[in-house]
């Protein structure tokens, strides 16, 4: 699996020597367009008094967080997590319980969910990280199956009904998830922070080491690196991102159910990543936005929306094996470089 980022890093290296001022890369532009577009969407929704699409967009961002965590593992470390919804669902349940029985503070609910996800990620990682390839994918899948069935059969957690009637949560008195516009901004800010943190991490020696592990894990040991510790660290980080994203879900929808941990959710996350662009980090957010939107819009016309999504998935994988953003990034980068050069010629 080759990463588009590594190729842009190679391409960017000589440019950095030429230009003392660092120009924005194509990847940065695509990220700016995404977040600016989201803000614009929120403003338009506010102006039109729309709530339905705003809440749909919020949901897309929340599932974007899950996709981001899948991309960290799949696109960087080269591990395919087929059960990443496990951590998403755990975060959602913890958050729902905290909000229902303890406090209405968004921050406390997120913090407790974060701690739980980190611990669950550590346990899950210790079990799953020892294996690679298909075996890792199946262990990840199996762990999610086991935990979701356990919850499905636990009456104290609402069994198959889940937990309903989760009250609105507050960031500050009077300001909270009950106001869709405010909550949209909070989710956008959190997902944006995850994205920026991951992008920063990927440019540090630690992040580059993850790339090295994906490309040639056998060799990194002979460069003095204990790959297992890096993989475990990435697994825990991915669990935390998935868990905190999941913790936002009951704040939006007011309920959680065991279905949040089912394979459908994990599978959608992987599809969002692949359609958006594996390893690009921003791609999975685009993928989530586009596919969540399509599922809802197409779903309102026909019950057979899975067919449409399935066909789209196949077409994208065949025509753009690196996904939408994996395809767009080098194209945009070449265009930016050309423009920069011709601007340089004129001066």
């Amino acid at each position, binding site marked *: 699996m080759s990463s588009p980022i590594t190729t842009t*890093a190679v391409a960017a290296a000589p440019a950095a020597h030429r230009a003392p001022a660092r120009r924005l890369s194509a990847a940065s532009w695509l990220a700016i367009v995404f977040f600016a577009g989201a803000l614009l969407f929120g403003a338009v929704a506010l102006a039109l008094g729309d709530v339905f699409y705003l809440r749909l967009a919020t949901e897309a961002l929340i599932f974007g967080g899950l996709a981001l965590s899948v991309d960290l593992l799949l696109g960087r470390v080269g591990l395919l997590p087929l059960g990443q919804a496990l951590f998403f669902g755990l975060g959602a349940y913890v958050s729902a319980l905290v909000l229902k029985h303890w406090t209405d503070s968004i921050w406390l609910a997120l913090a407790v969910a974060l701690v739980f996800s980190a611990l669950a990620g550590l346990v899950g990682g210790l079990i799953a990280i020892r294996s690679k390839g298909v075996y890792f994918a199946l262990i990840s899948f199996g762990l999610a199956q086991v935990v979701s069935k356990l919850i499905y059969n636990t009456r104290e957690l609402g069994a198959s009904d889940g937990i309903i009637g989760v009250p609105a949560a507050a960031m500050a008195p009077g300001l909270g998830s009950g106001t869709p516009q405010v909550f949209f901004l909070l989710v956008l800010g959190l997902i944006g922070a995850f994205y920026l943190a991951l992008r920063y991490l990927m440019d*540090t020696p630690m992040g580059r080491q993850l790339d090295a592990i994906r490309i040639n894990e056998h*060799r990194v040991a002979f460069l003095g690196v204990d790959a297992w510790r890096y993989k475990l660290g990435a697994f825990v980080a991915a669990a935390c991102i998935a868990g905190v994203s999941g913790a936002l879900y009951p704040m939006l929808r007011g309920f959680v159910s065991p279905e949040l941990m089912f394979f459908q959710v994990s599978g959608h996350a992987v599809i969002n990543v692949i359609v958006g662009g594996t390893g690009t980090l921003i791609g999975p957010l685009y993928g989530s936005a586009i596919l969540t939107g399509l599922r809802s819009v197409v779903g309102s016309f026909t019950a057979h929306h899975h067919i449409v999504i399935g066909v789209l998935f196949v077409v994208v994988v065949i025509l753009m094996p690196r996904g939408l953003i994996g395809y767009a990034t080098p194209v945009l980068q070449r265009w930016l470089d050309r423009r920069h050069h011709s601007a340089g010629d004129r001066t």
Partner: protein
Amino acid sequence: MTPILSVQSLSVQFGALRAVNDVSFEARQGAITAVIGPNGAGKSSLFNLISGAIRPTAGSVRFDGVDVTAQPPHRLLASGLSRSFQITNLFFDLSVRENLRLAAQFLEQGRGLLRPVRHSATARRRVDELLEQFDLGGKADDLAGYLSHGEQRRLEIAVSLASRPRMLLLDEPTQGMSHSDTHETEALIRRLSRDHGLTILLVEHDVELVMNLSDHVVVMHQGQKLAEGRPAEVRANAAVQTAYFGEKT
């Protein structure tokens, strides 16, 4: 001179096959020690035992006075023992510079791991040094996968040296090389030993190269040590003549 590496009664068995059988030898600090032997003599297994790639069934390896038997490779590297690979084992999708930077990153451990790589000055200096020393400066931004075979072999050794190890294990460094590349590699190994005081243990197929280069030669045959000594002594050894050189005529 003191031995920096000491191999004691090392054995490994794969099923019924005793690939390495009770082999002991020492490598002196600053010297070039070579292990030779015909195909299937157990050279590569011995090499993999020393470098931590496989676990021995018996025996021990001591490096710099410390027992390092069956230690994982990343620990061995941390104690100053590095290895290169016979089949070039690089990050082919990454640039030459990034290959070296990843290897030189070891020098930054602890401190700079969470700052952007463009700030890691120590690693960058080491990379520039290696690019110059291994004559890869012109290819720094090419992908490692696009280099010629000879260049890849050079990069392979450069990557193994990036962490400034005290001892380097070279697995058939001239494997598959042209005549002129072999000569270049020979000169390079000599330079590393003479100018940088690097202790080298190499496993080689090419008897001529070994005889020219080494201070000490260990001859393997059917998993056992057949003889050891200076190149001239080994060449004169009757058992070696029949087992090894005898085959060639």
